[in-house]
């Protein structure tokens, strides 16, 4: 039997401050080990969807439900969701003065381990995993001596997001336009990293504007999100249709 890691039913969400509805009834199921891609025009609600799943509180869920590993996700705080196994690679990662990437990741990894009842990693154990992953994603270790994301180029920030994903080993990774602003080499590195992480226990929900990421990552499903609703779902053939006809044909 197929296990669903994420089940979204009739999800409606609005911007807390203005009351403007962004998601107008989303239904989406993601099975264990599946990779889903969400495409769609600007303002369609792609980013909102992944941020609502991650728990951002500037959005308010007005109706519907989200279950993650059969648990009600909407009852959990942002940090609980993360420790439960959700990871969001940000479109615009924050720069945090004075906070070192190593220290930040150590705290994050330990928080997750603690929640799972595992002991904290020793500095040596952690450093080994840290250094190995840095090499895999090809981030210069000098860069990581700076404050987190400070003075990082756009591409370096995105690589760092993927690096954090590798460190936290989520069950569901949400990638919010991780490919935008990347040169070809960085795009390939991100694609390779995602492919390396793909296994039966890990699912992906990838928001993108560009078909070129899909040259590296072959999705199982593609959804088109327009006006806060999924207008169409299919396999990667859908991407070709978008290229030929644009989003207008789905509206």
């Amino acid at each position: 039997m197929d296990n669903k890691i994420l089940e979204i039913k009739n999800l409606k969400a609005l911007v807390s401050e203005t009351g403007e509805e962004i998601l107008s009834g989303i239904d989406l199921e993601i099975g264990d080990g599946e990779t889903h891609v969400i495409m769609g025009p600007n303002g369609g609600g792609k980013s909102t969807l992944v941020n609502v799943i991650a728990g951002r509180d500037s959005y308010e869920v007005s109706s519907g439900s989200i279950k993650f590993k059969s648990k009600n996700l909407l009852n959990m705080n942002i940090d609980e969701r993360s420790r439960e196994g959700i990871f969001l690679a940000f479109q615009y990662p924050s720069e945090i003065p004075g906070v070192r990437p190593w220290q930040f990741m150590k705290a994050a990894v330990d928080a997750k381990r603690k929640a799972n009842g595992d002991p904290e990693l020793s500095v040596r154990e952690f450093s080994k995993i840290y250094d190995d992953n840095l090499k895999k994603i090809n981030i210069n270790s000098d860069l990581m001596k700076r404050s987190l994301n400070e003075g990082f180029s756009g591409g370096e920030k995105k690589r760092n997001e993927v690096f954090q994903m590798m460190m936290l080993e989520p069950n569901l990774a949400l990638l919010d336009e991780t490919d935008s602003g990347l040169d070809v080499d960085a795009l390939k590195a991100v694609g390779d990293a995602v492919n390396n992480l793909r296994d039966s226990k890990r699912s992906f929900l990838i928001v993108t504007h560009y078909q070129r990421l899909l040259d590296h990552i072959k999705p199982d499903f593609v959804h088109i999100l327009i006006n806060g609703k999924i207008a169409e779902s299919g396999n990667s053939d859908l991407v070709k249709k978008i290229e030929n006809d644009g989003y207008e044909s789905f509206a």
Partner: protein
Amino acid sequence: MSYIDHYKKLIEAELKSNKNFYFMRAVAPGADYFIENGFPLKKKGNERWKYLDLRNVTSSNFIKSIYEERMSTDFESVLEKLNSCGINIVEDEILIVGDEDNHLAGRNFIEPEGIGASSPSKTNIGEIANPEEDGFIALNAAVADITSFWIDENFSKKALNIVFAGQSQDERLVTERMCIKILKNTEVTINEIHFDSNFNTLNIPVLEIHLDKDSKLIHNKVILGSEKDMNFNFTRVFQEEGSSYQNNSFCHSPSIGSNDIKVIMSGEGSECDLRGIYFTNNKNQFNTHITVDHLAPNCKSNQFFKGVLSDESKAVFSGKIFVEKGAQKTYATQKDLNLLMSKGAEIDTKPSLEIYADDVECSHGATAGNVDENTLYYMMSRGLKKETATRMLVRGFVDEMINSISDDKIRKFTSNQTELILPNLAFK
């Protein structure tokens, strides 16, 4: 009896004791000014103090602390606190202020090679810190306990720790005055550390520092205030040609007080770099008042301060850059960034530039904000609890300042102190 009458008696008693005979040229103007003007309580036209409520300063008739009281119960614990970050009396030069009348030969301090007491007749007290500049400085001048010494090349590359060990009695006035001359080509570090014990005391320490040609001073200043004490701390620096002055201030607010620094850049090609962090909490009020006077050409100055404010505390930052007509090619910058941890906290940040030269480059900027919600979201999305994330953010904000302290022991000391201070700040 007004509070001024009280201090008038105190000043007259001091003058009678003739202790300050050699220093009359500073004492007399200080006495006159204070008796006429008192503390700077009037709000009107009083730029330095207008945001603070100084009335508490007059709520007690403080009497001068004496040596026997000053040998506070805390002496050993002070050494212990310093020891925890590596400062100890075996390896380091520690001058415990108030230890004995002659500070430079106290029981814990034997004049090391390269440091010597100035003879009273050669002491330039009051020449850099003008007693008529401010009521606090005036009172200090009028009844000061004076220590005056020079440091020369034989002490280069070393650090002198000056420790103000705190008071052990209520209603005491502490008016230390230090006149320090850094001689030509000398490079030293001075760590000035104030442990304010939790008594109702009025501390007005004044340091006058003269930097000779091509000398370099790194001055780390730590003020650890308490809920009861008041600490109005003044540093006055005079720079000669090619000299360099660096100040790193680390201040945890007393009930009310200030870190007041003025640098007079008198010699061409001199540089000063003033940095600091201030923490305020409860209902404390703390003033950071910085003035840099560019009097000579080709000088470079930098002011960079940060504040972390919580509860219903209030902080003031007023930074002034003054550029004299002939001080061409001046390069001066100023920045003040504040993190407001709670709704009741208040910051008044006030940059001021007064420029009479036409070929200069000056900049200033100030911010005040809460903990950034986007950043918190980002950190929490990695599994960190809100409180952990907030503390890490504040720590990061503070660390940028602490990390620029070059003295390893003081960096460690201030880092440890930050860990002690942060839990007392309300992150709500």
